[in-house]
């Protein structure tokens, strides 16, 4: 067995502690994948793709044009190592979960799902030789591991992911601004969160990150119950971030709640689009492997920024 596969096996075993789903997700997502999913300029030729308006004309492969009369652009495997930081929102609201695991025994919280996702992404990045770091936060950064590209570092990351329990209020804007100060070099920030923060403030922080030459990608983790609001009768809503309790008739407020939720998500999506931040949504009832495959396949197309 090669060293790489030995390390991969160890990582997968470690991932299994985070969750069987995460390990299965990585295995499934890597099936048939290219060595690198981050494409750009490089000395090592990677392949062709059809020309699209805006592409650098110098990258047109005139030989292919002469042979086939098609405008194709040459692609090269990136040469430089990417420095990524996974930012995990571990605030109280991430502790919410209405679903069950594969055994149908316990709830899958958004934080559980986020942990699996963070582990899977970390492993995938290391596998393509990128450096990956971790920041776990709620109202402030609780744990910060600077990016590194060793498998041992990944094991440390996974230990921290495993130990973290949800708690504290959501204050992503403050956290991201703080984090932006620490990230000196250009890199990728992967934010895994439910994004239950003030949309304006969050977008302002994201702009700041972009200003600091960080590519940002957000994975918004959503619980299906929070979307559907499939509740009935009088409910006493107990906040998970020390909010005052609310007594409401679920049937009466469902539509208005959903409207507020959708407006928030719409504002966030529009804002992200405007500043070049890609926002992906994953639901906790969605198979993690399928979700990752869906996102990775979508990343194959041309983008304006970095891609995981």
């Amino acid at each position, binding site marked *: 067995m090669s060293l790489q596969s030995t390390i991969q096996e160890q990582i997968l075993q470690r991932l299994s502690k985070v969750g069987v789903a995460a390990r299965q997700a990585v295995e499934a997502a890597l099936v048939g994948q290219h060595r690198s999913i981050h494409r750009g300029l490089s000395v090592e030729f990677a392949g062709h793709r059809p020309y699209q308006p805006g592409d650098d004309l110098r990258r047109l492969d005139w030989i292919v044009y002469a042979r086939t009369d098609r405008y194709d652009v040459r692609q090269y495997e990136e040469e430089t190592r990417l420095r990524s930081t996974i930012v995990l929102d571990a605030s109280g609201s991430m502790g*919410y979960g209405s679903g069950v695991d594969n055994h149908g025994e316990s709830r899958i919280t958004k934080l559980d799902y986020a942990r699996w996702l963070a582990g899977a992404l970390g492993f995938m990045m290391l596998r393509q030789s990128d450096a990956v770091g971790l920041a776990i936060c709620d109202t402030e950064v609780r744990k910060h591991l600077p990016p590194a590209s060793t498998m041992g570092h990944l094991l440390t990351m996974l230990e921290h992911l495993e130990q973290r329990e949800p708690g504290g209020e959501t204050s992503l804007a403050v956290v991201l601004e703080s984090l932006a100060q620490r990230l000196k070099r250009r890199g990728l920030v992967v934010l895994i969160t439910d994004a239950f923060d003030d949309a304006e403030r969050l977008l302002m922080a994201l702009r700041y990150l972009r200003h600091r030459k960080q590519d940002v990608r957000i994975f918004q983790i959503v619980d299906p119950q*929070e979307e559907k609001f499939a509740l009935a*009768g009088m409910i006493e809503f*107990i906040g*998970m971030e020390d909010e005052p309790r*609310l007594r409401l008739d679920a049937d009466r407020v469902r539509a*208005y*709640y*959903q*409207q507020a939720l959708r407006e928030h998500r719409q504002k966030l999506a529009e804002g992200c689009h405007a500043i070049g931040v890609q926002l992906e949504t994953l639901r906790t009832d969605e198979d993690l492997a399928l979700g990752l495959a869906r996102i990775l396949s979508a990343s194959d197309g041309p983008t304006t920024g970095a891609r995981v």
Partner: protein
Amino acid sequence: MIELLNLALAGGIAAAAAPVIIHIAHRRRLKPIEWGAMRFLQTMLQRRRRSLSIENLLLLIIRILALVCLALALMRPNFSYTAGSLGGDVISRGAKTAAVLLIDDSVSSGEGRTMPAIDGVKKLALAYLDTLKTGDEVSIIPLSRLRAPPADPLYDLDAARQQVKELRPTALSSDMPALMEAGITQLARHLNPEVELVLVTDGRGDGWKSDDRVRWEDLRRRLSGGKDAVDGSRARPHLVLLAPEVDAIDGNLAVTAMAVDRALIPANRTVEVRISVAHTGTRAISGTLVRLLVNGRTVAERSLELKVGERRDLTFSHVFGDPGSYVLEGVVEGARDPLAADDHRALAVQVESTVPVLLVEGVSGTGLDGSLGLVAAALDPLGDGKDLFSITRIPVGLLDDRALVGKRVAILGDVPALDAAGVAAIEHFVVAGGGVLMGVGPQTPVELANRFWTRGGDGFLPALLRPAVDRSPAVHPVVSQIGHQALSAFTAGGDAWAEVNIRRHLPLDVGPITDLTRILTLDGGEPLLVERMRGLGRVALMGTSLDGSWSDLPLKPAFVPLIRGLMASLGGVVLPPRNLAPGQRLAWVPPEGSGDANVTAEGPDGLAVPLDSGAWEGRRALLSAPLVQPGTYQVRVGTPPSVIRYAVALGAEESALLPLNPLEVRNALGDLTLHRVERPARVAPLFAQGGTTSFELARWLVIACLTLLFIETILTRRMIAGERAAATDSVMKVAA
């Protein structure tokens, strides 16, 4: 003025609290859950809290109002106002009328030589019905149908007229309070707001019973409005009396009573039959004949001359040849008075060949010995069993149910403690109609008797016993209840009791027992011989011995007639009763172990009277419908048939035929307004249309309720549509 026509449903207003209760209950059933996305609930609340609260409050108010309207509609509020006084004795009808006609078709309504009074009653009732219009309700309640099941009011006035036309005089005695009670109850079945209670009589004064103050007071309270208002009506009903003005009759003869001089009538012995005849009116009646009929055959007759207002008892002697059931009839012939129905009267009697008597002795013996030896001699002096009383002597130890089978009277003499079976046997015997005479003596267990035989008034013994008292000098009995059946052989003022010496006795403590008759007392006033009804039978208790050990009564001449009189009183009860009043049912109880096949009954007119299976005093019996025709009824049992005769006799009070006394009516009705009309032509003018305008608000309240429910539906749909629009809008925006 607004009045509620159906106060009974006032409780329905409480239903208005239902939405509030549901709302509160809904809010109390809170389900707590942890929720992550509180931010959006708070955002939503910041925008919608006010509108949600207003919508909730509005819906709550609308639902409450809708229920209040519905509850009020069920209470049928009636709004009325008087446009102007019409003056005079006029009843204004501003709305549909609910009328209850109470018609007196009693005995007196048959009065009249050419045209019976009932015809005048019908004309008045029909004139009243003519004042009603389509949509008015009317109930016809004649006296003869008071016991019939209540019927719904009629809207078909022609049917009501037909009912009135079919009325006939009956044998019933008038009972105005009963009619009024029935009318008030019937009003509850009516719906129309203008309520009229109309009493139609023949103008005679009988049956008002104004001295029955409790009953009339209750009626006045129910008729006077307020919380005791007429059932089903909030309005004070208009009271109308349709009664012709009649004069005092010129003369009427009536057989008012019949009686036989003894309770136990033996065969082949002369008995005296008393027929009481009374005269009312202003004209003397002569040339009349009074006949005594036995089973429809005249056995004696006598001419009669009565002065104005005179009452006379005529006594006839008769010997019944055979034992059995007889009907004696007293008939006045040639009276030519206006009321023929009271010219005859029937009395059913049972002639006995023998009366079985059981003697239960504390000290048994034969001949004159034993606790009841002298009693046995008094009842059957020759001891040959041929006397009226057939006696059986047993010691107390043999007393049980079987010993009492077929006996009419049981005499207990100086018995010691009875076992439970013995006490139960005696109690069953008395309750079922048997007679018991108990004489105390040296062996009587006073404490035991008080505890188990008297049982504080619930046992068979009519009084408590006190410890024996010696009297020296001896005391004498005194007659306390003159005319009692047991003393029928004693003449008033006789000195038969003065020679009786009582040396020792057990004082009888009657205490709180009130339904007790003192037949004899001691000359000091203490009760000596008392009698009390228990169930259908009677029990007599003698405070001294019946064997001569405590007194010399058994040795004195008074003893034999006293004992035989007591036997007649205790054993002369024939059950079920055969002398009935109009309206009562004929009952025949088959003997134990026999069926009721081949039992038929016929009435005075010779027509069959249907008998239905039923129960009389807890026993299986055949019962007729209430009997309304006076005279003789016969029940034929078996083949060849043995005949049992029953008699239905009129109430004597109907024969007076006095004109209606306005003062008596006023005493009965108090302050209640009564509109009286004497002639049919004056009935219509009593009622005027339009003096008072009134209309029911129920329909408007129902409309308001429906409108509110419509608004509630619109609001709810609008809210739902708003919620859907909010959801759709956000989806569209997200999609865009």
